[in-house]
């Protein structure tokens, strides 16, 4: 029933390319640039999830507020008028897409509607779907950890978003791909955070380097990189304590971790992976802005998309920062991680209308 999209998702011309990230006279200029091209092998390297993942996404996302809202909106087969657009705007906003992104999307549709580009409400829906896909397509860039050895991933984000769980999932995924994975217990602050990561290590039979509670995070991660080198590990994934982006001192500590790693490998960390809780509202924009400025975030993971919140804020993030979204979290177990797929994401959000 989604044939239209299945046939040519890739050729969809971007209706509204995301604005280039605003020039910012800050340290982020020094951050490693976003990989310009996606390694061709990456898409082939994910045969496991191609079909089931898409179905999984649709199933899981179908119950979302955005999905429900838009679904019922179009099933009423409403008249093609400004009221419909207003309703559409409201629906996008209530899905955390954000006032600015929503308004921009809807204004574009309004102009096209007045130019009589759409025959009916379904035509308008398809145009919206195209625009949403166009916003996310550019940030659909998988993470390929083969470029360096060891490939160092530094995981960052605010408290409770799912960093440690995501690391557990990544360890499983990369181990299953036959890579030699090592984890670093860099959250030395939260009670039992080291234990939590160690449990994930045991579950996945992946070693964890730790020094225990209250150790210096930078030194733990530095040691782990040394260990990763001497053991010939392919990937090192470092956990860090959650911190609010407003806590200057703690944010500086992240900067320090990145600097310390560079002493061993000037290119490290090769990926600064920021985890964002999918239930977060517009504050995610502030979070990403600060983290990007201080540690040069290079990729995102959006978690907890198995609930009713569907992370509509990613549209605002894509629009403002254009950073790659690497993965989404769809549950609490080791296999609940999917490579981000813009089409699957939008398909889940925009259920097909009655007739198809």
């Amino acid at each position, binding site marked *: 029933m989604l044939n239209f999209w299945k046939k040519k998702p890739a050729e969809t011309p971007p209706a509204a390319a995301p604005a280039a990230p605003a020039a910012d006279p800050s340290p982020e200029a020094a951050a490693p640039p976003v990989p310009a091209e996606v390694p061709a092998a990456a898409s082939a390297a994910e045969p496991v999830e191609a079909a089931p993942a898409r179905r999984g996404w649709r199933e899981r996302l179908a119950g979302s507020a955005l999905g429900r809202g838009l679904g019922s909106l179009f099933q009423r087969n409403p008249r093609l008028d400004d009221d419909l657009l207003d309703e559409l705007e409201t629906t996008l906003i209530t899905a955390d897409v954000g006032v600015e992104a929503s308004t921009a999307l809807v204004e574009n549709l309004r102009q096209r509607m007045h130019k009589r580009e759409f025959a009916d409400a379904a035509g308008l829906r398809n145009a919206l779907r195209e625009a949403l896909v166009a916003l996310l397509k550019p940030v659909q860039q998988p993470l390929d950890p083969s470029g360096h050895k060891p490939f160092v991933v530094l995981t960052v984000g605010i408290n409770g978003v799912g960093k440690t769980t995501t690391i557990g999932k990544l360890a499983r995924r990369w181990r299953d791909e036959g890579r030699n994975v090592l984890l670093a217990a860099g959250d030395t602050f939260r*009670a039992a955070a080291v234990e939590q990561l160690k449990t994930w290590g045991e579950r996945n039979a992946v070693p964890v380097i730790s020094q225990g509670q209250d150790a210096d995070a930078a030194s733990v991660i530095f040691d782990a990189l040394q260990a990763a080198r001497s053991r010939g590990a392919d990937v090192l994934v470092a956990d860090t304590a959650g911190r609010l*982006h407003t806590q200057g001192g703690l944010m500086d500590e992240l900067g320090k971790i990145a600097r310390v790693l560079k002493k061993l490998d000037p290119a490290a960390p090769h990926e600064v992976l920021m985890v964002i809780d999918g239930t977060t509202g517009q504050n995610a924009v502030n979070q990403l802005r600060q983290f990007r400025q201080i540690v040069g975030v290079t990729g995102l993971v959006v978690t907890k998309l198995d609930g009713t919140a569907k992370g509509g804020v990613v549209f605002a993030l894509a629009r403002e920062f254009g950073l790659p979204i690497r993965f989404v979290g769809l549950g609490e177990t080791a296999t609940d991680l999917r490579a981000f797929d813009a089409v699957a994401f939008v398909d889940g959000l925009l259920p097909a209308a009655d007739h198809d």
Partner: protein
Amino acid sequence: MFESLSQRLSATVNRLRGRGRLTEENIREALREVRIALLEADVALPVVQALIQRVKVRAVGQDVMKSLSPGQALVKVVSDELTAVMGTANSELNLAVTPPAVVLMAGLQGAGKTTTVAKLARLLTERKKKKVMVVSCDVYRPAAIEQLRTLAEQVGVKFFPSEAGQDPVQIARDAIAAARREVVDVLLVDTAGRLHVDEAMMAEIKALHAAITPVETLFVVDSMTGQDAATTAKAFADALPLTGVVLTKTDGDARGGAALSVRYITGRPIKFLGAGEKTDALEPFHPDRLAQRILGMGDVLSLVEEVERKVDQEKAQKLAQKVMKGKRFDLEDMRDQLEQMNNMGGLAGLMDKLPGVSGLPDSVKSKVNDGEIKRMVAIIGSMTPRERRHPDLLNGSRRARVARGSGTQPADVNRLLKQYMQMEKMMSKLSKGGGKGLLRQMSGALKGMGGMGGMPPMR
């Protein structure tokens, strides 16, 4: 956390200020702005609509007082309505039952339940003099039980052990029995985070609730939550007879619309705010002060209370007397002040509450950080007692030694001394001003701190 909403509303109201009176038309325009502001602050749409409707009815109707300008009148109406939605007074925990009083926590993954248990345990022990026991029914998340065990040890309360293989309902039952045996006043029951769409998990917490009949069932919600706060809150309120809400991570810069949504949807009072990761970062929630904070007036009342609770009264008295007698404010005094500031949850916690500060751009505020305070304390710590009492002694070579000793740069030492001089000047002015309350000392100190991170002095 509510800065941006207040900024936005004041801009709108400033525009209104030029008008003669509140007409249907200019109200409509202002309300559109208010609507966007509330949505951007992540207030759930149904709540926004209800709020706007109430404001409209009251503003256009003849509630406007003669003494107010139209702008003020609208702010007052919006403020009144925000307050009305938030409830009228601070609600405490209800523990008036035959002990043990059982408190059940519920919420999504990562909301802050376990941390809140530790904070509540500490608050009840220290301020209410209760005998507290905690227990974890989170048999799912790795190391969740260990997390609570560690925290219980930190705050010095009884911990009822449990294990990942056990049944949550049985754990809670056993804990209640133990609490009875050990004559505990309050038993705090931590639970695993769960999604409201997870039927099995929702059934589990219902069963848990039925088995232990808690006197308080607290819904813990992250203040950064978006529109989903309404959906989630509704589902939890439908599943469980909630008695209150805890709003966590309010130490960030989220606009906190979730507070309005959850309160409106559940009808349950917000009983506490989580304002930091440490176990003392739990504040009673005062609904009547929230609207003021939203509108940028600063939560001065909360600040006064906090100052009174945490400032070492004796030291403060001594300093006040010293300053009043015209004695010189020295580096020893400065260190005391810095340490007190640290005790109070650092500058970020303090600044948020001061009037005017909410208007400062985030970039400025983020420069003033607590690491800076610690560094300053370290620098002073590397001086000899004589140097602390007579800062004039600190010549170039002494400064270099202090820098080495504290692992800082000579420039840092120079900066600190400059800030000291500013504070000293402030203090001597204070002593001439006479009759100074604690609050004024604090804000004096804060002004001194202003120079530190490149923050412009506030007024």
